[in-house]
């Protein structure tokens, strides 16, 4: 008896609720953008400069006491958060202390760090500092630029690759789906105010890689079926293609999610933000491959007559998706 995520033959009409699903995606993207611009992101020091200290103590973290201890040092904006890790040893109480970039300093001075460490030791004698990281405002500015460049370059490279391998309609559809995934990921980071730092950008790029993977598999099948069934309605062929690849889509998402969930719960808090982003992206990316990318291709229409050149206006161009 084999494990089956779905029955062998499915015949789901993925366009039945196209208006609802596509509309929901649009609304979600808009909401994410609104949240991003109003609430902003909880940038880590990679992107805003400053210093973070990771503390570890056998006594529970008293955020208020830490704050009081640091107040006399007058270091400006300080944020202190306790780190919960269900998988870790309950004797370890970990907190992150973030100090803003100091006026006129490119990076934290050793004096400032030892002052902070000294102040925290007065309230928690057994405290140890398992990591101290400091990024100057100049570097953080550049890191933000590079991050945006990386995301833009990835989208651009994929736009070109898919265009070369398929058709421009596929390429636009795929990139729109990726854009959807990226914005929704940024949106969830904004809503939950999870720390947004350099590894999260790597996660977003991975999401792009994963989601395009999914989309390409469906497109590949669609291209094959379009050649096979020259007379059938584009919408029908699309549904057929998605149904045929549905088992694979879910299997792959399933195995990837299994691996990611293990990492999310057991991989420790240092990379939790990073893994969370990828996990979220795999879910959103799988959805967008099925519900976003091909709706746009359907909307744009596809050249069906592969033997003739540039007969592109397509009788299906105006089908209401």
């Amino acid at each position, binding site marked *: 008896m084999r494990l089956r995520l779905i029955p062998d033959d499915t015949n789901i009409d993925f366009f039945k609720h196209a208006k609802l699903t596509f509309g929901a995606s649009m609304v979600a993207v808009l909401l994410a953008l609104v949240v991003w611009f109003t609430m902003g992101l909880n940038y880590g020091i990679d992107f805003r400069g400053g210093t973070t200290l990771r503390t*570890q103590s056998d006594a529970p973290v008293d955020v208020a006491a830490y704050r009081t201890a640091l107040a006399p040092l007058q270091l400006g904006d300080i944020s202190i958060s306790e780190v919960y890790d269900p998988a870790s040893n309950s004797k370890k109480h970990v907190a992150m202390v973030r100090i803003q970039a100091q006026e006129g300093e490119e*990076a*934290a001075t050793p004096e400032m760090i030892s002052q902070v460490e000294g102040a925290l030791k007065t309230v928690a004698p057994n405290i140890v500092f398992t990591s101290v990281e400091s990024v100057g405002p100049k570097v953080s500015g550049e890191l933000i630029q590079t991050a945006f460049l990386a995301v833009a*370059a990835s989208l651009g490279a994929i736009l070109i690759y898919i265009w070369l391998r398929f058709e421009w309609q596929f390429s636009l559809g795929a990139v729109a789906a990726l854009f959807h995934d990226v914005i929704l990921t940024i949106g969830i980071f904004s809503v939950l105010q999870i720390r947004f730092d350099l590894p999260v950008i790597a996660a977003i790029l991975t999401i792009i*890689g994963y989601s395009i993977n999914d989309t390409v598999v469906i497109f590949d099948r669609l291209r094959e079926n379009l050649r096979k069934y020259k007379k059938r309605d584009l919408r029908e062929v699309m549904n057929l293609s998605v149904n045929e690849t549905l088992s694979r889509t879910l299997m792959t998402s*399933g195995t990837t999610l*299994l*691996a990611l969930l293990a990492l999310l719960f057991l991989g420790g808090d240092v990379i939790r933000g*990073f893994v969370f982003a990828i996990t979220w992206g795999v879910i959103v990316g799988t959805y967008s491959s099925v519900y976003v990318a091909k709706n746009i291709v359907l909307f744009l229409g596809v050249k069906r007559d592969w033997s003739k050149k540039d007969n592109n206006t397509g009788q299906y161009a105006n089908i209401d998706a």
Partner: protein
Amino acid sequence: MLQIDLWKRVLIILTCAVGLWLALPNAFYGPVEQHNDAVKAIDVAGSTPELEAQRALWPNWMPSQLVNLGLDLRGGAHLLAEVKVADVYASRMEATWPEVRDSLRSITPVRRVEAPEGELRVRIGDAAQMAPALEAARTLARPVQTITGAGQNDIVVNGSGDIITITLSDAEKQATDERTMQQSLEIIRRRIDEVGTREPTIQRQGSDRILIQVPGIGSAAELKAIIGTTAQLTFNPVVNRGADENAAPGLGNSLLPDAESPGTFYVIETAPVVTGEELVDAQPSFDQNGRPAVSFRFDTTGARKFGTYTAENIGAPFAIVLDNKVISAPTIQSAIPGGSGIITGNFTVEESTNLAVLLRAGALPAGLTFVEERTIGPELGQDSIDAGKIATSVAFIAVLFFMWASYGLFGFFANIALIINVGMIFGLLSLIGATLTLPGIAGIVLTVGMAVDANVLIFERIREELKTAKGPARAISLGYERALSAILDANITTFIIAIILFVLGSGPVRGFAVTLGLGIVTSVFTAYFVTRLMVVFWFERRRPKTITV
């Protein structure tokens, strides 16, 4: 139909075997690491029974390259230093001033006036003499010795009214920046090697930054203290030379080893004639007979001291001492009055270049600003390794079970391929000496999840082909064939992302890009070729009439 040529079979099996063979040392990380350290130590300092015992922990004929652990896993310090390259312009101008003064003195009285940093302004007593004064000053210019700056001079001399302004030309500034960066890198490298930590990373980043990563060091502040300390370069008189490391040097003298040839020792006078602080520049050049040599220049005080000393000691050797090691002990050929001189010897061009670098490497040429620093404690690194191990194992087992439950025997083939895949990733990482970071572990876990994608594509395809009832052999071969285009497209796009991440990322993110990229290459290989080989082997033995995937 369902066939693979013999040579292809051999090639596939060999590739797997080599990959796993290379990965093997990582399974015994501790002993292999001790073995490697012992081999290095024996190489440098000779053998002791203790080191021999450590070396015996791992056989010599086995591969011993390990995956480096990144700072976030091993603990250590990371610094990004910005070199203030413009500092050097000012000191260059300082050194030019006496030359300018001396060359103009015969024409008109000169006085130095206030000028912005990196610029030299001279007021001449007689404005009418401007034209000959400019001409005289311009004779001080030397051609810039770089490929891009060819044909340009190192200084630009301008005159207006009674003021002569001298600045470095853009080509010379570029060349100077380049030299400053090389010197800084060299100095920092020497400083850190001195501390003797394992596998430090010292890399240039962009035009004026240096990335320094030192595993195992307590804190970034400690590292800064090491880099901040300037090494002492001195020029000392040589008393004699010998091979006895226990020779009594005598009062006021020191016994120092030769830096190049072990077993050679010099007795030198402890009080230096001049020190590296007084050295302005050193360049590889050639002597009058066209043999490689090193030319050097002292500042004014250094030049005076050096001139007097050399005039009095022609024919005697003197030692160039760096970090209490004699790096060279040339013989004084003639008095060197002008503060610049040339060191000849039995040099090759490469040696003279190195010596010039070493001479310049005496003191940091420019100040450093630390723009980024990170300290990761070893406990945190260990925690991350432990968590990573557990998570990877759980992920692995879950995926293996899932594949087996879904595809039965074929799933089992895919699982073997997956295990080989992870082995090969480690093998390749060891081979290229890549660094494994925490996001890199995540990359491997993600690869585990995604690697089966190719197999899922193939198996789903075989299932479909089976429905059209062409017989199992045909279905299997069609499944592999027709799934290939989707597999390639899907993996190439992900590979593009890995390249972008590698080019634009840094540190841990780059580590992630490397494992992701390698994982794509190995997973396509194992998921496609290796499973196919297994299926073919199985099919040839059993010849099943029907199959279920």
